[in-house]
């Protein structure tokens, strides 16, 4: 008997997504760079020459050494050191890890919230829809960054500096996730509104399936491609928001830095000529966000969903 079942991999290889990916040089390059950065971040403990969290490995005498190739550099620190004498390469690797963790975590949270509220608003309609979308409208009109800054400020004031620093990573995921759910909810709602008029939904209703089952098993899978596109762009946004919050001192503490808090700690030394402490993490941040945005652009062109833009 010939193979009746086609494996998922084969199906993927024959899909339009794979076909257009192979032909798009920008998409391939962005994907490779992103993959390298994610791998470097995941294996940071193995790759990094030193552990920036371990105070015993830090020597204050090594502070503010320039990167290799400049006068006064030390071959032990290829990208130089920061003001506390931490190896900048290791700190950037660990910082990328923190930034990516917060980026993915926040998008996971906002996807859960956005999908849930978007499905409810779109499928149930009526009062539920009106209330949820009004909240989304108001929250969006305030700009997600503003909401995140205010929530972060209130949390920081109520928890105190020390406590906030310890749980900062979860706080940031929560703050950014809650601040940005309307983006996804509106997209989901728009595609649910289109889907629920189709025959298969009527069929499922006639067969007597429960409302939650129709919502999550039947409609949700058909709204996934726009969610996928917007979630990609949202990861980039979440990473920028995290960096902004950390830069304002409302995010990761300096002892456990993300890319944003590295930029902040380096900014205090830029006037004394130590540009690398702030500009090298900044460069990594820009490249990371740029490749995610480029992949998002490519995905949007390929999947061409009707994105809801307010």
């Amino acid at each position, binding site marked *: 008997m010939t193979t009746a079942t086609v494996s998922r991999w084969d199906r993927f290889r024959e899909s339009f997504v794979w076909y257009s990916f192979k032909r798009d040089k920008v998409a391939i390059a962005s994907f490779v760079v992103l993959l390298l950065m994610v791998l470097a971040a995941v294996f940071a403990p193995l790759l990094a020459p030193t552990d920036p969290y371990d105070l015993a490995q830090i020597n204050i005498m090594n502070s503010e050494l320039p990167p290799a190739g400049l006068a006064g550099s030390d071959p032990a620190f290829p990208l130089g050191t920061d003001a506390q004498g931490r190896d900048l390469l290791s700190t950037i690797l660990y910082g990328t890890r923190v930034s990516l963790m917060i980026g993915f975590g926040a998008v996971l949270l906002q996807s859960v919230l956005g999908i849930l509220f978007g499905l409810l608003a779109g499928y149930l309609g009526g009062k539920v829809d009106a209330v949820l979308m009004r909240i989304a*409208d*108001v929250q969006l*009109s*305030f*700009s997600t*960054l*503003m909401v995140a*800054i*205010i929530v972060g*400020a*209130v949390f*920081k*004031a*109520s928890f105190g500096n020390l406590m906030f620093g310890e749980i900062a990573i979860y706080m940031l995921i929560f703050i950014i996730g809650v601040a940005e759910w309307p983006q996804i909810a509106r997209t989901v709602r728009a595609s649910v509104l289109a889907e629920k008029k189709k025959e298969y939904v009527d069929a499922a209703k006639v067969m007597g399936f429960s409302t939650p089952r129709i919502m999550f098993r039947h409609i949700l899978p058909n709204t996934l491609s726009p969610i996928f596109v917007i979630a990609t762009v949202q990861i*980039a946004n979440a990473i*920028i928001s995290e*960096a*902004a919050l950390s*830069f*304002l*001192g*409302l995010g990761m503490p300096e002892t456990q830095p993300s890319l944003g808090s590295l*930029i902040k700690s380096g*900014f205090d030394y*830029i*006037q004394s*000529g130590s*540009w690398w402490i*702030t*500009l090298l993490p*900044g460069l990594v*941040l*820009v490249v990371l*966000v*740029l490749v995610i*945005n*480029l992949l998002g*652009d490519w995905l949007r062109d390929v999947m061409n969903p009707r994105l809801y833009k*307010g």
Partner: protein
Amino acid sequence: MLAFLVQRISQAFLVMFVISVIAFAIQDGLGDPLQQMVGMSVSEEEREALREEMGLNDPIVVQYLRFAGNALQGDLGNSYFYSKPTLEVIAEHLPATLELVIGASLIIVVFSVPIGVYAAIRPQAWLSKFFMGVSTVGISIPVFLTAIMLIQLFSIGVTVNAFPADTGWGQWLNGFFSTEGGLPSYGRGDNLTHLFGTWHSGFFSEGGLMHLILPSVSLASIMLPLFIRLIRAEMMEVLQSDYIRYARAKGLSAGRINFLHALKNTMLPVITVGGVQIGIMVAYTILTETVFQWPGVGLMFLEAITRSDIPLIVAYLMVVGLIFVITNTLVDLIYGLVNPTVKLTGKKA
């Protein structure tokens, strides 16, 4: 139209009510005014008496009504740090922020319209592709990083000596990549002109304008790519429409079609979206002002957070909330006026 007006304005009041409840909850949950006022030596009975006198034992609704009543009369309490009314503190800092926003808006308007229109008329030209590429990169650079790079390049200055200095071309390249620096990157300078009330302006002196350059370029850098993309997208859509094809068939000149007929209809949505974006700029002023130590409301808000100056935080929220609500309502109303197809249920068409 009247129904639309009433609906929008009542919604604005509802939003303002929600903001005031949130602000009140923050004040109630975070600040214990008693702790700020009295020392450790005050006994528990005295504290209780004071609490009663200040109305802190009243039901929460009564306390909220008192808060809202005072707010409506322009009394949002006194700042702990400045020890004067919070609204006065905000009024002192607001002109600096407004001048920053005006500077950035000018830059955005001057650059986004020609670039956006050009990219729409000639989407395939290499210059258009270059501008669109730059704007994609621009969106990916956080505003505080742009600000830091501008400081490094134009305030501190960069000296490049990577090329051999003993050759003519090496010297030229070194000089080409090096920058002088020298632009001010801290505060607004001392040469401010007093206009009226609390408004001291930097627009009328060379020093004030020089101080304005780097902060407003940074603030503009985050919005400029968005506006270029928006203008390009709207313009391309307009260029597809029937009346433009008719104008072309009629033999009108390209310049007349593009700049008189198409641009007019492009700018309507751009202005309304732009109004909302200008409001969103408030969030970015916090970042820009922090980098440049620009003495506006954004920096004031951030300092209030580090000083746990709760009344000032609450007052900032109320004022910024009011600004947002007013801009959004105005933009919606203008949109409703110029575009009669807008649905009364509220969704933008």
